[in-house]
Structure formats: C-alpha cells, structure tokens
C-alpha cells in the first residue's frame, strides 16, 4: 500500500516538473516564479477538494455524495453575491481581498452547518432523498445567485462574474497566502482526527457503539469541509464533479479502510489530475479546451456510473 503512495508521489513530481518546464522560454527566474505561484494554487485546490470530498463521504457513509453535489460551492457563490449586493461593489472592492475571503469562509461555515447539519441528521438513511435535496438546493442557490447578479449594477456584477465560473488557468493569486494558511489548518485538523474518521465511516450505529458520537464528528468535519470548499471555490470557482472523480479513483487505488492511507492517496491523485491535466491542456493543446470541462465531463460520467450501479 505504501509503495502505491510512493509511485503516485513520483508521478505528481513529474507532472509538476513538466508543468514548470515545458515550453518555458526566456528568463527562468521569472518563469518559475510565475508558474510556481499557479502551481501552488493548483496543488492547494487539489488538496482542499480531494480531502473535503473524502471526509464528507466518510461522515455521510456513502460514496456518491460530495460537498459540491450537495451545493456547498453554490452556497459559497450565493453568499458572495449577497455580500456584493448588500455592500455594493465600491465598498466590496475597497475591502482587502484577504479580509473578504475570510468573511466569506466564516459565513459559509455558519450557513453550511445550519443547512447541511440538520439535513444530514434527519435524512442520512435515505441516500436518494439526500441527493435530490442536494440537487434542489444547488439549483435554488444558483437561481438566487443568478437573480442577485441580474438585479445588481453591471459594475458590481463584474466583481462576482470572475468567481462564478470554474477556471484552472486563472487562479486568484492575491488570496493565495490566506488560502495556504486556511487549507493547512483544516487539513492538519483532519489529519489529527484520521483514526476517528475510520470509525465514523462505519456509519452512525457502529460508531456510536465504538464510542465515537457521530453528531460531534459530523459537526467538526462539516466546519473543516466548509473551510476547504471556500478556499477551493475562491481560488478556481465551482467544480462540481472533480472531488467525486478523485475519491472514486482513490477507492480503486487504495482499498484500505484507513484514512492514514486514503487521505494522502486522494491528495496525490487530485494533484496529478489537476497539474497533469493543466499541463496537457495549457502547454500541449494550447488552451483549446478548458481543463474544467474535461474534469467535469469525466467526473459526471463517474457520478452516473455510481448511481446506475447502485440501482442494480
């Protein structure tokens, strides 16, 4: 199992090297600094999304639902639009980018706990109901977001427009510093409770019997997932099926019930998909197709396959 992680690590290193070096011309110092920043952003998003999805699937004891399918990132965009609408673009722009992001993260944590905490407790036995609720909520959030974006001033709209689409090529580098701090804090906390996660994955009844109260664990994990989704959405916008693609590959590669193995595997696979994919799209195919489209297409196929296999 450990050599699989080592192999994945080597592949990721190779992908990073390729991303930094292929097609580089001119001053290497500038190229590395410029691309290095984007690479850091991609790796951060990969880590945040893969861990958020993996632990979300753990606390809901299923392998189909992800924070994105449940509408976490749609909720983030709704809150962002509501903020811009409420404050006005002038005030919003005048605020420091880091402060805005911190405010958004804080709001999303609160809203996610209030909404999804209650939903997961009452409906977790019925997966199909959860999926439906998630889809309905996502659509609702997106519609309200779209409405807000229509009623606000076009100038204000420009502020949120950039955040509303998935884009791996144009990472928001001005919030990178804060994102690194938030992601590392959240991931550190998740790594700290990795053994508890193993037990929580057994479902609420067994984990209660083994002395891990599921409600408390869910509470902790939902907060950390909200932080990670916020970071990822702030950096590259909403990506619905990326997390699902990563976790289903992770379970294929690492079929062990231990998060001490699953978490590193998921992070590495996420990194390989994003960095490797971005290298191919950006350097070899000349940005003809955005990576987000390819990732969403593949992830969407995985989602359908998982749903259909469950029905049988």
């Amino acid at each position, binding site marked *: 199992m450990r050599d699989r992680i080592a192999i994945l690590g080597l592949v990721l290193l190779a992908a990073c090297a390729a991303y930094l070096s292929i097609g580089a011309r001119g001053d290497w110092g500038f190229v590395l600094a410029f691309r290095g920043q984007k690479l850091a952003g991609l790796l951060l998003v990969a880590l945040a999304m893969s861990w958020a999805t993996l632990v979300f699937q753990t606390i809901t*004891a*299923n*392998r189909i639902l992800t924070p994105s399918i449940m509408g976490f990132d749609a909720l983030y965009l709704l809150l962002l639009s509501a903020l811009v609408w409420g404050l006005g673009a002038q005030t919003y722009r005048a605020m420091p980018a880091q402060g805005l992001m911190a405010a958004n993260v804080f709001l999303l944590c609160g809203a996610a706990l209030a909404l999804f905490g209650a939903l997961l407790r009452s409906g977790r036995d019925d997966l199909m109901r959860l999926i439906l609720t998630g889809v309905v909520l996502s659509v609702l959030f997106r519609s309200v977001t779209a409405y807000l974006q229509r009623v606000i001033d076009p100038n204000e709209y420009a502020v949120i427009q950039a955040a509303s689409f998935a884009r791996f090529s144009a990472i928001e580098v001005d919030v990178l510093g804060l994102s690194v701090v938030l992601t590392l804090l959240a991931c550190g906390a998740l790594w700290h409770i*990795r*053994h*508890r996660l*193993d*037990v929580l*994955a*057994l*479902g609420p*009844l*067994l984990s*209660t*019997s*083994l*002395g*891990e*109260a599921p409600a408390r664990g869910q509470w902790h994990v939902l907060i950390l997932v909200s932080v990670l989704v916020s970071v990822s959405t702030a950096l590259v916008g909403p990506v619905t099926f990326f997390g699902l693609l990563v976790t289903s590959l992770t*379970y294929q590669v690492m*079929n062990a*019930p231990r998060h001490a193995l699953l978490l590193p595997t998921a992070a590495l696979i996420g990194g390989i998909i994003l960095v490797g994919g971005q290298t191919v799209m950006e350097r070899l195919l000349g940005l003809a197709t955005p990576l987000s489209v390819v990732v969403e297409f593949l992830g969407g196929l995985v989602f359908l396959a998982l749903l259909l296999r469950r029905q049988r």
Partner: protein
Amino acid sequence: MIDIEGVSYRIGGQDILRDVSLQMGPGGVIALVGPNGAGKSTLLSLIARLNALQSGRITVNGLPVGQVADDRLARELAILPQDLTVTIRLTVRDLVGFGRYPYHKGRPSEADDALVTQALGNFDLQDLADRVLETLSGGQRQRAFVAMAYAQDTAYLLLDEPLNNLDIAASRALMARLRALAIEKGRTVVIVLHDINYAAAYADRIIALKGGMVIADGAPKQIVTEGLLRDVFETDAKVFRVDDRSVVLV
C-alpha cells in the same frame, strides 16, 4: 448491572415504552421477547445510547447513559444493532479489529491484535479473515459483526435479533457461543429474539414486553406457558415439556 428506572419513550405521539423499570445482570443470557412493536429494540437502543432518553434513567455499572463519555461506555457495553450495512470495503479482520478501537483509539498494540485473532478463532472466522464483507453470505457477515462486538471485550453485550438470516445450524452455534460467553466469562448478554424456542433453550431469563410494558419476567421454565403466549402474542400455541425444557409447538 444495567439499571433501568422509569423509562418511557414516545415517537410521534405514540407510546413505545411505558414506565419500564428493570435490572439486568451481572451475568447470564437475558432474552427480550414480545410481538412486533413491543418496544424491545427501542429499549436496547436506549441502553446503548443509540437513541437519547426522553424520561427515566439508565445506568450501566453505575455509569449514567447519556451523561457518561461515549468512549467510557464503549468499554462497558457493546451493541449489535439490527440489519447492519457497511458502505466501505472492509475485510473481516478489519471489521473485528474495529472492536478494539475504544481501547487503542487507532493505534493497536500487539495485545489488541492477539485479541482480534482470538475473536476470529472463537467465531470460526479464521478462513474468512481476509475476505471482504460484501462477498460473504448473510450468516457469515452476521458472525463477523458478532465477533467484532465480542472483541470489544465488554461486560455487557446487547444483540438485536442476531438470528435474522441465520439457518438453524448457525443459529444454534451462535446461541451456544453466547451462552458459553456468559457462563465462562461472566458476561451479560441481552438479546432480542423472535423465536421463543431459542429463548427457552438458551436464556437464563426471559423478559416479555408488550405495548411498551413488561408483562412477564423470569426463568424460561416458568415463563414459557400457553397462558403467556396467549397474553403476549395473542396466539393459541401448545407448549410441551421436552427434556425439562418448554417447547412451543408452532
């Protein structure tokens, strides 16, 4: 001792348990019987804090359920709920290994591994140890879950209808093992059973529930009578005495 004092429980305006007071253990196999909806499973889930108490009080070896830390209670009491499903891919050894979690919190010692191996042996699971749960038959899976609860090494073991999906050989073997556990190690096994004959054959004490109340409580020989079947289950079945044991003719 499990001490239940004045426990009532309502779901959606419906009384599930009405002012139940009971003391169980230490030691022995205690069978909970009664018709569907009598409140047996609810009682079990309240003892094991799977559901929160609404009124009354339950203590396990003096520890108040609902107030004592969850992991403390997990070293005192194990429960095997009905119809368990696990969504993740687990081998039998992984599953049984989780039974030691309340002690090692994710870092198993050699003693923990030894206990897991012993539990696998006790429940004839050595050959299946590396098989994945979903590839097992219902009966084998059930045995793996019981082995996990056994590995938790608690004074109290609660089982909710563990004989579902088991054929007669597996049922008898499981009941015999639970009985041996109670006799040899002084454990208290509380078990919800549907089949009165199994209760009469393997339990030291039968508690009959109906409509959320305790109707009868005592040794199988005194309890399993035609009168009880009429009162509790509302059925006219004949009860015979074979080898000093009450047998219900079904």
